[in-house]
């Protein structure tokens, strides 16, 4: 067949793939994702069927009969029995934004960069031969189709090696597909759609060839198998126990494939990372096995037909192509080629994408981040760099695969290479499965197991294959290295009952699992490991995504934003932060300090780009941990500590609640008390109003009923009425006064007040009461203790409202007059920066408990006195004094009388040499202007409710 035709067809096919991917991406951008369908998910899972399936199954069936089946029984069993495991991996990966199987392992064991890197290396080692296998299959099919049978491309110069051009083409292809987007994290919807499409193509192609051979060249299955039964070699293939496949082989092959379909990087990529809906699994668990059944339907018939046609010496791996070619059906042969091509390309695209993600996230970036000279943290955008790393990774991977083909490819059948890969990825089994179900697995355990497993795998499988390549002496296999028989790579410790692959599998998994368990038991996990372990194992028990392990970490939001912009790109970073703010009802502009939750959110976002381990390193560079040593402390604690912490938190909350309740109760009690006092006050005021009202009414009615009284008598009653009306007015004034005191700043302007004269006037005002009770009132002004007359030189001037100050002093004086037994002392004396007014009585005194209460409005001390008052006088006095920046205090012992002490700040001396306030400034007020100092009318100036009752 013409090579240009084949190349043209392949190019056209790739064009169609691009169209499919492009269409899918377009639809996704429009919000109509074509991969929403569970069928697409199930079909994309069929990336499991590679060129190995397409060509190799027939090859294997031609030698082992049904022995090709375990490779497909395994995935079927995994789908049917192991979907619980798959579902758990899915859920975990979604919560933690896992990007690859290496990321999964690293993340599970404390976001360990080392472990993720190790897993990436293991995956690379395991998968490169598998990729090589695809190259080999594609190039072999090309050669077969173009009629160059028997040409060994491995001996040709590189530029004539079809495998090289295949690798180059696939590298370009994968770069265009897998790293087409600048955005490195979003799901590759286009790839998934293209892979599903390829699954259809390879199935259709294989069924077409199978159908043509079975029903075209032969007359159905019966005819074909009857023909085969006539040939002894072929007949042996029909029986299960026949061929070369023993029961033992069936078991380990099936088990190995069960693990492979879970752990192969490309299966993880498609089945877990690219999955968009967990419920798709429900369709996949029956549709995927059905697909496998369908694609294997014609494997045995094709093998039988090939053997009948070409004999057992022919290249059985090529029967799918050579059978239609031999029958002259070139079109079908081209379709078969396309089917094999699609199987190979699908695998390469996905596997290379998955591998390059691992290389980038788990190998290159962690290293770059640790090289300070690169100053990665200072770059504003790293998406370009990440993309370049990934593209470079793809080229390297395919180059490695090509070198593998060129070096070893010709010596191994497709199946052998495939099984080496399967055995390699099986090394992930202990740490992945253990990590899913056993919280006790530690990072060191996983590391030990993986290293041991990969080393044993390398020693027992790829290393001996170097013998075939001529790099090692055959005695390495037969006698062991340096003649140590116990170390023979195919018969370690003398175990020689197994074939090489199951032998390697046995030892590597035994050592791997053993090291994993033993080291895990012997080592202590760190806090992060413990937290991740719980989140992985108990993923279904937790309602939401992972709780922030970052705990007490905070960071400036701007730093986080810069970080996100660097790795995600500006638009996406801003959108993500805006999303966060919206979800948490926060004002995006007000976000300044990121709390632990936002830090965790950012780390998760970055995990999607960089993998968990690198994301952690990057985020930690901007995070300020409040108490880093806490990790070590927490290290000692068990999981139950978390419950205790929650409990403690609850207790703290409860205590806070109790405190608030107590405060509210106190406030409530205070309000009640205030309310009660107000009621009392209103009641007192109304009582006090009734007394003058009664007097006025009685006197007025008397005058009305006795108009004939002589004028002198009338005058007495009229005077009484006038006096009582005045008293009423004063009472009303005082109530208003108290209200005004409650709203300060409404007083008249201050002026100089001479306290000596004010006190003298106040003394004159209470003289009638004093006389009435036969008291002695002494007035003294000056520093001395004696009651000498005030020397005029002593300045006792304060700034203030004279009326108010007069009222305050009068209230104190009235109070003293009321309670005194024999004498009242009134004294004014200058102190340092103040003037003191002291009012002392010799009454029963005030109990210490009551000394505060007496100054509160509406309260009355339990003080034995002539009569209960309203309790307003002292309250008003104190307020007036405080209004003037002074203090009013009481000093008293029960039985020893009471001393009230007013202390007012002295007036600032006038600025320009003025000597006395009397001479230069307006004369100081004395407080006698407004109060009526009519000595003939007792009580005329008394403003205190206590004093409103006049004595007989």
């Amino acid at each position: 067949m013409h090579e240009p035709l084949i190349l043209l067809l392949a190019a056209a096919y790739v064009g169609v793939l691009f169209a499919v991917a492009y269409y899918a991406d377009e639809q996704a951008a429009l919000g109509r994702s074509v991969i929403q369908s569970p069928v697409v998910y199930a079909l994309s899972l069929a990336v499991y069927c590679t060129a190995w399936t397409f060509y190799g199954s027939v090859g294997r069936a031609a030698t082992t009969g049904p022995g090709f089946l375990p490779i497909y029984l395994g995935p079927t069993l995994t789908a049917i029995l192991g979907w619980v495991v798959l579902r758990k991996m899915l859920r975990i990966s979604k919560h933690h934004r896992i990007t690859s199987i290496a990321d999964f392992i690293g993340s599970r064991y404390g976001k360990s960069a080392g472990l993720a890197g190790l897993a990436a290396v293991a995956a690379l080692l395991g998968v490169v031969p598998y990729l090589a296998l695809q190259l080999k299959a594609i190039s072999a099919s090309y050669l077969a189709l173009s009629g160059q049978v028997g040409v060994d491309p491995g001996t040709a110069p590189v530029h004539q090696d079809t495998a090289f051009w295949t690798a180059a083409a696939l590298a370009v292809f994968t770069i265009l597909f897998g790293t087409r987007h600048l955005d490195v994290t979003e799901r590759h919807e286009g790839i998934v759609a293209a892979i599903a499409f390829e699954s259809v193509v390879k199935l259709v192609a294989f069924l077409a060839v199978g159908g043509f051979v079975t029903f075209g060249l032969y007359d159905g299955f019966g005819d074909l198998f009857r023909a085969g039964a006539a040939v002894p070699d072929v007949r042996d293939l029909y029986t299960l126990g026949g061929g070369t496949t023993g029961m033992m082989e069936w078991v380990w092959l099936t088990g190995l494939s069960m693990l492979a379909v879970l752990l192969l990087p490309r299966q993880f990529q498609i089945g877990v990372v690219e999955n968009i809906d967990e419920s798709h699994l429900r369709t996949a668990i029956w549709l995927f096995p059905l697909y496998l059944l369908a694609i294997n339907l014609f494997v045995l018939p094709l093998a039988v037909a090939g053997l009948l046609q070409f004999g057992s010496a022919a290249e059985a791996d090529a029967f799918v192509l050579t059978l239609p070619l031999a029958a002259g059906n070139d079109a079908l042969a081209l379709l078969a080629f396309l089917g094999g091509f699609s199987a190979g390309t699908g695998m390469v695209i996905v596997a290379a994408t998955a591998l390059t993600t691992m290389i980038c996230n788990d190998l290159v970036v962690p290293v770059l981040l640790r090289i300070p000279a690169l100053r990665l943290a200072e770059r504003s955008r790293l998406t370009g760099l990440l993309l370049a790393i990934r593209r470079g990774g793809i080229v390297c991977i395919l180059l490695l695969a090509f070198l593998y083909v060129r070096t070893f490819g010709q010596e191994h059948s497709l199946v052998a290479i495939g099984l080496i890969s399967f055995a390699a990825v099986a090394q992930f089994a202990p740490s992945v499965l253990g990590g899913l179900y056993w919280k006790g697995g530690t990072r060191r355990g996983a590391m030990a197991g993986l290293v041991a497993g990969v080393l044993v795998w390398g020693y027992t499988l790829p290393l001996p294959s170097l013998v075939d390549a001529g790099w090692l002496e055959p005695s390495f296999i037969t006698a062991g290295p340096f003649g140590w028989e116990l170390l023979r790579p195919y018969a370690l410790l003398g175990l020689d009952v197994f074939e090489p692959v199951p032998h390697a599998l046995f030892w590597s998994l035994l050592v791997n699992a053993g090291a994993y368990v033993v080291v895990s038991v012997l080592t202590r996990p760190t806090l992060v490991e413990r937290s991740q372990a719980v989140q992985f194992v108990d993923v279904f028990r937790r309602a939401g995504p992972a709780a922030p392990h970052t705990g007490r970490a905070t960071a400036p939001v701007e730093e986080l934003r810069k970080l996100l912009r660097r790795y995600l790109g500006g638009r996406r970073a801003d959108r993500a932060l805006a999303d966060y703010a919206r979800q948490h009802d926060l004002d995006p502009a007000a976000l300044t300090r990121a709390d632990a939750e936002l830090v965790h959110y950012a780390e998760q976002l970055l995990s999607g780009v960089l993998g968990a381990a690198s994301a952690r390193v990057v985020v930690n560079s901007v995070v300020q941990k409040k108490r880093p040593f806490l990790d070590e402390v927490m290290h000692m604690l068990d999981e139950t500590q978390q419950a205790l912490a929650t409990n403690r938190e609850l207790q703290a909350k409860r205590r806070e609640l109790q405190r608030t309740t107590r405060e509210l109760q106190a406030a409530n009690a205070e309000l009640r008390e205030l309310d009660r006092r107000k009621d009392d006050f209103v009641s007192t005021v109304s009582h006090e109003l009734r007394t003058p009202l009664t007097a006025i009414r009685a006197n007025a009615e008397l005058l009305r009923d006795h108009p004939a009284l002589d004028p002198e008598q009338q005058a007495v009653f009229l005077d009484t009425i006038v006096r009582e009306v005045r008293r009423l007015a004063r009472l009303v004034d005082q109530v208003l006064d108290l209200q005004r005191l409650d709203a300060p700043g409404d007083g008249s302007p201050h002026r100089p007040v001479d306290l000596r004269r004010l006190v003298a006037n106040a003394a004159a005002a209470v003289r009638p009461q004093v006389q009435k009770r036969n008291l002695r009132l002494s007035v003294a002004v000056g520093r001395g203790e004696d009651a000498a007359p005030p020397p005029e030189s002593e300045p006792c001037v304060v700034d203030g409202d004279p009326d108010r100050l007069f009222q305050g002093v009068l209230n104190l004086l009235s109070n003293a007059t009321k309670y005194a037994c024999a004498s009242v002392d009134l004294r004014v004396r200058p102190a340092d920066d103040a003037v003191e007014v002291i009012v002392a009585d010799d009454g029963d005194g005030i109990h210490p408990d009551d000394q505060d209460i007496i100054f509160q409005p509406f309260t009355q001390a339990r003080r034995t006195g002539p009569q209960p008052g309203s309790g307003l006088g002292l309250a008003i006095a104190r307020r007036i004094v405080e209004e003037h920046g002074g203090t009013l205090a009481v000093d008293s012992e029960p039985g020893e009388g009471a001393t009230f002490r007013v202390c007012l700040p002295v007036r600032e001396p006038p600025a320009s040499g003025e000597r006395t306030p009397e001479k230069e400034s307006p004369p100081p007020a004395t407080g006698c202007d407004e109060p009526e100092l009519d000595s003939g009318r007792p009580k005329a100036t008394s403003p205190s409710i206590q004093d409103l009752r006049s004595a007989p």
Partner: protein
Amino acid sequence: MATVLVVDDEPSIVLPLRFLLEKQGHEVQVVSDGARVLPAVRDRTPDLILLDVHLPSRDGYDLCRAVRAEEGGEAVRIVMLTVNSREVDRAKGLALGADAYLTKPFAIDDVLRQVDELLRVR
């Protein structure tokens, strides 16, 4: 004619009461301090007492009971004059032995009529 004891510490109220009672021919005695009521009663038992409740030293309710306990105190007519206008205060006064209960501010005619009535019954 009768003897009336006026117990109140408000001279402005005592003044018209005394004037009118004396005008009607009664003999009026005034006391302004609660402590001096019982001595006055013992000294000369009045026919009627006009008793204020709010008094220095001793309140009217207490005095009312005390007067009733005195020898011959049961015969004394007692009229309580008080600012306590609540029904419960009135009931308390009457329960303690008052013959009448008048709330301030009272109409002076009511006081005189009450005094007349009580003295006539005697």
